């Protein structure tokens, strides 16, 4: 039950936006996030609790009902749930060894969308992100300029950039600046 004096949530990039005819850079809505670490022999049990199979191939993601798991390493996933439901309770019952740590507020999401999205990201990300090599659903922990990000392609011309909260100002400013040069 919400109380009258309940603390107000103040997302890091509140009110920020950069928009051009060819690309827009906008903060993503708050989401639940887990940093999920699981050895191979627990993947089955954890997948079952999550409601879908954790992706096993590098640079891939899986999602169902607004909940996505991004492969970050052989035993590491970033789970993002935008449905508004908490992820932890489901995993709380898993007996198999795993680590699920709430990082909902650690990360900030930024959505880069439009025909110039690829060029905007390519200004600071050395990975090959052309659609043919980095298709929809592809994801990767990589760099943007001078910071670490998780990059996730959610559509032909849409990417989600996840970074740590205190780096979000840098990430957003960088992407806004790069967007100027992304007219394609």
């Amino acid at each position, binding site marked *: 039950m919400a109380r009258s004096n309940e*603390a107000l949530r*103040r997302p890091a990039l509140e009110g920020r936006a950069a928009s051009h005819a060819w690309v827009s850079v906008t903060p993503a809505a708050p989401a639940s996030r887990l940093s999920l670490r699981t050895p191979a022999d627990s993947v089955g049990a954890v997948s079952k609790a999550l409601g879908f199979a954790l992706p096993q191939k590098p640079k891939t993601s899986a999602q169902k009902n607004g909940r996505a798991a991004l492969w970050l390493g052989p035993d590491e996933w970033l789970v993002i749930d935008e449905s508004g439901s908490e992820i932890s309770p489901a995993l709380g019952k898993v007996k198999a060894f795993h680590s699920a740590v709430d990082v909902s507020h650690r990360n900030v999401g930024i959505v880069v969308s439009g025909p110039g999205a690829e060029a905007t990201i390519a*200004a600071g990300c050395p990975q*090959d992100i052309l659609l043919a090599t980095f298709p929809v659903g592809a994801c990767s922990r990589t760099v943007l300029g001078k910071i670490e990000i998780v990059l996730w392609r959610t559509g032909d011309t849409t990417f989600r950039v996840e970074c*740590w909260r205190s780096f979000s100002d840098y990430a957003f400013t960088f992407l806004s600046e790069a967007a100027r040069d992304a007219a394609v």
Partner: protein
Amino acid sequence: MTAPFRVAGKGRLTPAKVVRFTFDGEHYSGLEGDTLASALLANGVHLVGRSFKYHRPRGFLSAGAEEPNALVGIHRDAARKTPNVRATVQELHDGLAAVSQNRWPSLKHDVGAVNDLASPFFSAGFYYKTFMWPKAAWKHLYEPRIREAAGLGVAPDQPDPDHYAAHYGHCDVLVLGGGAAGLAAALAAAEAGARVILADEQAEPGGALRFESGAVIDGRNGWDWATATVARLRAMENVRVLTRTTAFGYYAQNFVGLTERVSDHLAAPLPDLPRERLWQVRAKRVVIASGAIERHMVFPDNDRPGVMLASAARTYLNHYGVAVGRQVGVYTANDSAYHAAIDLKKAGVDVVAIVDLRDNPQGPVVDEARALGIEINAGRAVVGVAGKLRVSAMTVQPKNGGASRSIAIDALLTSAGWTPSVHLFSQSRGKVAFDDETRRFLPGAYAQDCVSVGACNGTDDLEAALAEAAGAGHAAAKAAGAKAGRAGAKLKASGEGWSGGMLGAAPGAGADSKAKAFIDFQNDVTAKDIRQAVREGMRSIEHVKRFTTNGMATDQGKTSNMHGLAIAAETLGKPIPEVGLTTFRAPYTPVTFGAIVNHARGSLFDPTRRTPMHGWAERHGAVFEDVGQWKRAWYFPKAGEDMHAAVDRECVTVRQSAGIFDASTLGKIEVVGPDAAAFMELLYTNPWQKLEPGRCRYGIMLREDGFIYDDGVVGRLADDRFHVTTTTGGAARVMNHMEDYLQTEFPHLKVYLTSISEQWAVIAVQGPKSREIIAPLVEGIDLSDAAMPHMSVREGTICGVPTRLFRMSFTGERGFEINVPADYGQAVWEAVWAEGQKHGACAYGTEAMHVLRAEKGYIIVGQETDGTVTTNDAGLDWAVGKKKADFVGIRGMMRPDLVAPGRKQLVGLRTKNPKVVLEEGAQIVADPKQAVPMTMIGHVTSSYWSENCGHSIALALVEGGRDRMGDTLYVPMPDGTIEVEVSGTVFFDEKGERLNG
């Protein structure tokens, strides 16, 4: 109005598209598509600069990127002043303003030209020899003078208002150079299905087809074929054509750096357009099609304005429609200059004579020149020229001596042959090999997945070059994984081939000559400078280069290296390959700092990290300090307070009532798994197995060598879950250190580490009123001393949001650290602040935090420790688990030096005069009367004024410090020696009663 040297019906520019510009304040007009060079030449202007060392008048040598002479300043506005722009590369736009450089008071009358007369004093190596004595003069006399005189252009004096962009590119095949070979390679690779990037430095690709008038490819004029091929490439989805783009550096694993000049050619660029764009391309295969560069003839006074490369004159005529003179002479040692003579003659220019060093030149071009009525002087040399600001005559003499005659000219075209551009190949770490037959260096052994094609590979025939390039493009596509299929049909082509020529000095500039026959125009290096270097003992070409500065200017010796090498070899009496070639280094042509820095300027120079409560602190007048990338509130001055007053007030308020402090920047790591405690046992000196869930412990982490690495309070949330805190500065490296040990030393442990530094905002509430302040806000946690003693952690809610609430203290007062999810940080802070106001609490910053902890003798890692301090040195042996069998650093701790007596130990210092505050870092001595250098026995690590104690306090590391309690020591400072007394490290509340106070 048509410029006087524009030739009607020649060139590819549209006569109607007139562009206005200025040079040294004079107004001129040119045509759209002109370079500054072609537009000036169209107006009859050859004199454009003064040389670097001798201030000799200089004109255009070339029509391209290799230009060593025609360096000008381009002034767009007060802030946009670019020095040393090659006029042969700068495209003309309306309103362009160019100025000449290295002259005073004017280009025509330059006082600095006295250097030319004094040149015997400025010979090679003159810097090394002249400015040696007296030694002291270097700093105060020579260096400032030299610095004043050095450099060509003037650096801009305002911040650069332009912005620069960057783009990482990936492709199957990267083609460097868009001449005939590059285009053929790109097309073949693209048709094979590969992702292709083609980069060319010109506004329009085409390379030598720009001037080679007779080339025919696939039944069409060469330039038309190039234009059509570029259009075809641009239309293909798998191809990106980058024009005005120079590949300047070839790095490891086919990583190539390129700069694209985006808006320098535009009169009024749109605001979103960057000036330049840095491309960093990773290619599976690279095709180098960088062509060849013509060499000038080396003869006396060959730098006079009007003396230029034959191919340049041809480019100006055939592409820009400009005649470089009305009475043109030609001096050559190979066939290619004949083509220039023929083209000019056909365009109606008087070509007065061809002087050919060869005894009996033969072939179709020679016949054609003769048939056109051009006088050919075979077996002869140009041994001098007349004219100062512009060549007016050439002196021709049989090459073995004899009667000379003077021929009036207003331009002299020279060609000594062509040098394959192996720069990028060499940068890729490929080894060049000398081809004895053609006397040139060509690509030899390759080090990377690249291939050279066309002129840069020594393939002179056009059809052969096209076939080689198409084959290479197809093969590269295939090797990169493209489907490929069969290669396309071979292109039929006919064109000119330009092998042959000469290297080194021509007659008149021979060994006995005192004439200035220039090799390197930009650095004013002459043939005799090279000979002198050899005479003075330089044997290696690397030494010759450095002694004479040959090839060390911004053009990197594109026209001079081979001449210099040949003269050195001749003087040494060795074959060229034995003398060697200097290494080619990036950048191929100068790159702006703007392009290198691109987005990383201003707020994007480095990330600035701010906590969730930053905005509140800002609104409440905080002064911030930089802690790594973080901005931390340093102190919160009230009106009229200076830093000292604010910090004193904050320190007193905390101990009297309470203070609220933003500790969000602390590193935090969640350690999860059934082996979490076992892992903690191994990483920290402390015991953890028996720490109950809900309790905290101050932990110390060592490096393998036994020295303190980091510290922090650790809370056990559950049997299998720890909430670890680290220092702010140590957050990233401690996480790496732990992950490193987990993966390499303790992989058997079932535990995972997750950084939660930024998940939680941390609000420290410290002081006797702290519990009363937070109590109204907290739900689900019993805050009584019995239920939640010092050093415990509870989970519950505060202001309706989840919290991990720590009862801990870094001030010695009763204290709490409230962890809340970061987005709630500011709101919870505001609620705590509102409660705090009822109790007279204040917000305090990092400075007060430092003073308060020093009053209690708590160390700060990195301040009291410097990587050579042990737990014993710091008086922290109580934090080492005595019964533990193993942890990182346990063996390091036992090393003889680390347990030897006399080590520096942490003690307190009290100044005899309580008002005196020691300087941090100050050295400590036992006897202030000893001779300098004194024996230093320690240093001050922390020092503050303590308002709570009423006297200054300091911590120090002192040899055998704990045995010196009560002793008097001395801190010698520049303005006097300060007496101090050694004390314990706790200055306030020695019994620690206030933790529950």
